[in-house]
């Protein structure tokens, strides 16, 4: 349904246009106006079925929304809501908050969930512990928390926590996006026990969401750098006419194209419900993270000193890329996971595993 996605992308671009990305700081932690506009247009419920309160549409539509916002450095928790928290809650048969109330996601291995004794039934849990590096902590109204199951029970608990009454620390990532901690002190929440493979799929969704954002941001960084090289004159001609600059831009293009290909393949894996999703997401996250090294470094090199300032747009995306590659599991974590995963068929099964992944 390419035409639907084109329409979605156009709508998001229209909303983004006219506003520069926000420079985030302790006072201005997100772009509330952007969120309101997106919510009013129904874009914070894309890919969520209408019967669950969403706007309908396919995964590909949600991916298109997330990509467009990532390329525009939109400071809103849409990737977390549309690609991770909402589908994970739905898959666990849990109710969703209204799509206009920002919903985020946290992997919280240091939070333990115990079945509640309040008589509300097996769907109620009590969460205790500290969730760290929570995206949009202090901004999001709700958090889907992937917590540790009680001792002796395999798997994890996915619980929907109302964060409105919780205090968040002010930690932020390199781009100023909130990544604070939430202290859960016996917080009651509805939740569901996930089997280990279900929990792994949720973690994979999170890694894939960041990979989708990275792919879009890296494409935009390349486009900005090509444009800048065409406009900036030195020694009487545009930078783009220098062979040294051409080599750098071509190297960036190679990285960006490779990232897009593997991220698309992982999204397709998610679409068809592939049991290999964790390995595909791992490959996407590792490849995207590796590309950030090259693309961000060369983009800044080509832009020169102006790109090193807050006055110029480049930092909105390069700082995000430097953080997104760390979040949801960095290259060290996912490359070990992928390395072990492709050997799951035994020492002679590597090629079979790689070709099965697509």
């Amino acid at each position: 349904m390419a035409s639907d996605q084109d329409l979605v992308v156009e709508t998001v671009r229209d909303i983004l246009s006219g506003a520069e990305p926000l420079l985030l700081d302790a006072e201005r932690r997100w772009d509330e106006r952007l969120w309101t506009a997106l919510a009013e247009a129904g874009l914070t419920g894309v890919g969520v079925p209408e019967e669950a309160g969403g706007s309908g549409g396919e995964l590909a539509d949600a991916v298109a929304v997330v990509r467009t916002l990532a390329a525009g450095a939109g400071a809103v928790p849409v990737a977390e809501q549309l690609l991770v928290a909402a589908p994970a809650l739905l898959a666990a048969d849990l109710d969703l908050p209204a799509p206009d109330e920002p919903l985020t996601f946290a992997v919280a291995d240091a939070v333990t969930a115990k079945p509640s004794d309040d008589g509300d039934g097996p769907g109620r849990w009590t969460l205790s512990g500290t969730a760290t590096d929570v995206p949009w902590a202090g901004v999001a109204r709700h958090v889907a928390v992937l917590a540790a199951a009680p001792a002796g029970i395999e798997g994890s608990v996915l619980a929907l926590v109302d964060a409105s009454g919780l205090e968040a620390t002010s930690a932020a990532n390199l781009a100023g996006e909130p990544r604070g901690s939430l202290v859960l002190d016996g917080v009651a929440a509805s939740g569901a026990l996930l089997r280990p493979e279900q929990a792994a799929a949720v973690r994979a969704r999170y890694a894939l969401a960041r990979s989708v954002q990275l792919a879009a941001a890296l494409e935009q960084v390349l486009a900005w750098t090509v444009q800048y090289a065409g406009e900036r004159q030195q020694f009487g001609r545009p930078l783009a006419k220098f062979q040294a600059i051409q080599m750098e831009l071509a190297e960036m293009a190679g990285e960006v194209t490779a990232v897009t290909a593997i991220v698309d393949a992982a999204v397709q894996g998610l679409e068809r419900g592939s049991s290999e999703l964790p390995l595909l997401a791992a490959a996407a996250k590792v490849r995207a993270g590796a590309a950030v090294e090259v693309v961000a470094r060369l983009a800044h090199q080509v832009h020169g000193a102006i790109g090193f300032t807050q006055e110029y747009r480049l930092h909105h995306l390069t700082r995000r890329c430097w953080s997104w590659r760390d979040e949801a599991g960095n290259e060290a974590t996912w490359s070990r996971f992928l390395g072990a995963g492709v050997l799951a068929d035994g020492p002679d099964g590597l090629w079979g595993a790689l070709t099965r992944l697509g």
Partner: protein
Amino acid sequence: MSSDALTLAPAPRSEAAEQVRVEVREFLAAERAAGTFTTHVDTWLSGVDPAFSRKLGERGWLGMTWPKEYGGHERTAMERYAVTEELLAAGAPVAAHWIADRQSGPNLLRYGTEAQRREILPKIAAGECFFVIGMSEPDSGSDLASIRTRATRDANGDWVVSGAKVWTSNAHHSHYGIVLVRTSPADPANRHAGLSQLLVDLSLPGISINPIRILDGGHHFNEVVFDDVVVPGDMLLGEEGAGWHQVTAELAFERSGPERFLSTYPLIAEFGRRAAATGDPAQLATLGRLSARLLALRQLSLRIAAALDRGELPNIAAALVKDVGTTFEADVVDEVRRVVDVPASLDSPDPLGRALAEAQLHAPGYTLRGGTNEILRGIVARGLGLR
């Protein structure tokens, strides 16, 4: 950014390709069990085995996409992709037929006369006729338009060729070369004019083939010297003077396949066995990083195969994939040796040490052959609208 030249639609899954993949795997397992071949790195350069090539021809795995009337099998580029990829991953001896199947055949199909096609294509598809590329010369590498090998018409209308070609892989095992020659004097105003391609039988009098050994001592490269060689007049390939255009199209075939990122795969396979045995986290992480890069390259290469099936000629995307892919091939050596304490040696008792040695000694070639990565990046830069 004019990214259209660089972006390719995702490849649809091909059941036919997966089916033939299974058949090739079974064939390779049986051949390996029978001792027909042992796995080596970079076998599309070094693994010459005409008997093996004939077996592939018998199974219909050469000339796969060509019309049946010329001995082909009218299968898709995606199916051909699966076959070539399996052969490369296994490190099977495919060098004898590789050039003929990959680029000389398609070149003949596009530009050859009916007689040339009927005579030669069925033999290539049978695995009985091997080709060399006659492009580079001692004084002409990346600057291909500067070649000096000349062909002039004699009184009978035949071509008299003199000059020398270098780096001609496996000329000493091959039957024909497609040789780029200057058929009109060089015109400084149009350097690409006056070039033509000739189809040259390598057994003609006046041709001498002299070995050039590469770093591991292997004899794959040659210098091919043409000393007033008389080539029949009907062996012109395509149009006189259109050589530059034809050679550019030929290079697109040369640049788009899985051999541009799988040349060192047998080293990865050996390293994977080591990581499985040790369980060492650093080795697993390296294997994961290499796997992520390889999986991305596979997606890109599959997209190119799918684009070929749609009848497109994705020259710029192919240049980009070759740049990224061959860089990866060389990086594999560095990545692996950082996390294993195994000296690279062709005499190593450890198969990993031997694979490292083969991959290292072949490494300088990956980012040179078929167009240096600097040339490729120039093509990509054009695709980005920079030149």
